[in-house]
């Protein structure tokens, strides 16, 4: 009897698909632990300007000064041992423009993850990062000819210093939180994108962040600037093999949407259960611009991520649509930050979390509308689905709205997939995992419908895998 997929798509299901790694001879290895030497090593390898080296060192001291946020967040953060992590690993080669030139083990990795295939079928460009550096980076000619820049952060710094420096660290200052400071100290990889005025990039640009090494931290830094009236969809995927030891992933992503620009940033991450995923993401929306985060968090041991939009120009719009799935032994601590800083700005937050078994979901939302503004709107909706009674879900919405010229709306719900529902579905011949998948997919369906088709297929597949895993 078929117990595999009821998905109607043709991608083969293999729960262990991302759980593999290759032995790689890293040419550059900053070694275990974090000190000023580590930063010097990274700056040296990259041949960075002095101002960046200084920026890193300042960030390191901010990192040391900041307390672990365990007074409000999970105490599990204290299990991270910063001395037993390697902060920089690379093969010492520039990113390749052709897959044929990518070293074998890296090429095989990305082939197993289906990246080149996706690139051929629907992407405008791909950057594939392997541990600390991109192994491959390419943007289709037609897109490059429009003046779109899509490179890694080091290349962005070296080749496009003026525009990079103008926005770097401006949306998310080093001291925003302990992990943004850590990233600022040791960042490597990530994307730098610039879309010139009026250019509407038709197909998505994609980055894939792959962790291969054990006892390692990945700290990519992404900066995306979409100029006046331009439009971009960017997609990131992430995976890592499952190790006994902890892996750290701590990215900083800054988006800048100039007047009338639109950015849609889609994340579908599927971390293994040993990954601490502590990411800071924020967008700055100028007049009439739109920043939209679509954030799907599957896997990891602990994810803390609250994508935000600062609506700086009048009429700007911000949106966070998130789906978090916490399985046994996982904690998804996610949410959204909406900062209204101009009149007639609109924000929308829709968060759906699913907790399975001992999995735990937390929603933290922050909506800030100051008194001196008028005509601001926020809609916040968070729905939680619990599959079995051991699951836990918490909601901490903080909506500070001053003044009376605004409209806000907040809705929250918690629902259960009951044993009777599962029994009913099983009586029709569905396995427990299939029944749970169907319920979970049904729960997130109205959100997924808004995703580009390729990603909704991907997400559905990941949910199927995750449910299969949860019933063992």
């Amino acid at each position, binding site marked *: 009897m078929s117990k595999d997929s009821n998905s109607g798509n043709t991608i083969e299901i293999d729960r262990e698909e991302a759980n593999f790694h290759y032995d790689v001879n890293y040419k550059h290895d900053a070694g275990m632990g974090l000190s000023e030497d580590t930063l010097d090593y990274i700056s040296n390898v990259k041949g960075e300007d002095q101002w960046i080296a200084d920026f890193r060192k300042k960030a390191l001291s901010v990192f040391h000064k900041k307390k672990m946020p365990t007074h409000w967040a999970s105490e599990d953060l204290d299990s991270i041992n910063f001395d037993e992590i390697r902060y920089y690993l690379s093969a010492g080669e520039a990113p390749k423009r052709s897959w044929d030139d990518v070293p074998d083990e890296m090429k095989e990795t990305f082939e197993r993850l289906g990246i080149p295939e996706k690139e051929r079928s629907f992407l405008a460009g791909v950057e594939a990062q392997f541990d600390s550096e991109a192994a491959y980076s390419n943007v289709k000619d037609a897109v490059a000819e429009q003046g779109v820049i899509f490179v890694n952060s080091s290349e962005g710094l070296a080749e496009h210093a003026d525009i990079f420096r103008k926005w770097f660290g401006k949306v998310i200052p080093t001291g925003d939180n302990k992990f943004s400071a850590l990233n600022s100290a040791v960042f490597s990889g990530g994307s730098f994108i610039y879309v010139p005025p009026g250019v509407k990039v038709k197909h998505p640009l994609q980055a894939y962040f792959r962790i291969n090494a054990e006892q390692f931290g990945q700290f990519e830094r992404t900066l995306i600037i979409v100029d006046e009236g331009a439009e971009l969809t960017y997609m990131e995927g992430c995976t890592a093999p499952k190790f006994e030891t902890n892996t750290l992933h701590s990215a900083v992503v800054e988006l800048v949407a100039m007047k009338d620009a639109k950015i849609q940033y889609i994340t579908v991450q599927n971390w293994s259960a040993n990954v601490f995923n502590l990411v800071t993401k924020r967008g700055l929306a100028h007049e009439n611009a739109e920043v939209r985060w679509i954030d799907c968090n599957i896997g990891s041991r602990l994810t803390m991520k609250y994508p935000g939009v600062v609506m700086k120009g009048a009429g700007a719009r911000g949106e966070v649509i998130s789906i978090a799935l916490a399985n046994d032994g996982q904690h998804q601590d996610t949410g959204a930050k909406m900062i209204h800083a101009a009149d007639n700005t609109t924000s929308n937050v829709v968060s759906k979390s699913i907790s399975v078994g001992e999995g735990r979901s937390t929603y933290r939302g922050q909506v800030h509308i100051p008194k001196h503004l008028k005509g601001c709107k926020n809609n916040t909706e968070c729905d939680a689905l619990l599959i079995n009674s051991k699951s836990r879900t918490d909601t901490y919405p903080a909506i500070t709205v001053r003044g009376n010229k605004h409209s806000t709306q907040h809705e929250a719900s918690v629902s259960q997939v009951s044993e009777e*529902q599962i029994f009913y579905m*099983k009586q029709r011949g569905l396995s427990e995992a299939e029944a749970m998948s*169907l319920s979970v997919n049904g729960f997130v369906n109205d959100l997924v419908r808004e995703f580009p088709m390729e990603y909704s297929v991907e997400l559905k597949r990941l949910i199927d895998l995750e449910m299969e895993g949860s019933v063992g």
Partner: protein
Amino acid sequence: MSSLEIKDLHASVNGIDILKGLTLSVPMGEVHAIMGPNGSGKSTLAKVMAGHQDYEVESGEVLLDGESLLGMEVDERAREGLFLAFQYPAEIPGVSNANFLRAARQARLPDGEEIDAVAFYQEMYEKMAQLGIDKKFTGRAVNEGFSGGEKKRNEVLQMMMLEPKYAVLDETDSGLDIDALKIVAQGVNAMRSGDRGFLVITHYQRLLEYIVPDHVHVLYEGRIIRSGPKELALELEEKGYDWLKEGELVKN
């Protein structure tokens, strides 16, 4: 050998004995009715056969074409060919009827084989038409906000789509007006065949005018106390159950 066979079944829920030595055989190709007063254990029997986790089987056997069902998972039993039309069908928010049926059909295919979507939809629409179900129904969530009658029709639609070897219909007539009852009965009758068996649980004789059974059994306090031809149903309608209860006492 081809039969749905229940042998001396004892089952309890929360430590209370409900089925107390129930024996019954539905040969393939036949329709058997179970009648009995409220609380006699009719739904319990249906759920025990299907494998509901709340019910403890103390002893006895349930065999589907000679194969024991009791050791199997709920979904395995279903894929072996057992279908239960629930007295109170669950609501599944967010899952459309079409997706649900499609997943259930897909689950019956061998590994690597994909359902033929076009043929599936065509078949579903035909069967819906037979049952007088509106086309818009496919996009609605399974049973969510359905009237009692709509839920029962949906159970029958699912049965028609899944083509089980043995179907247990638990009070599928309740909540249906006479027109709906006729339509549902037509659906069931159209499925009657030499290679399918039915166990029709009902409280009223009315349903059995439209789905005429080969045999009628009376369930009382967890046991079959009387079996007979279809006329037994009429007798019950006239005389009530008390007449049999006395008989049961005598028998003991």
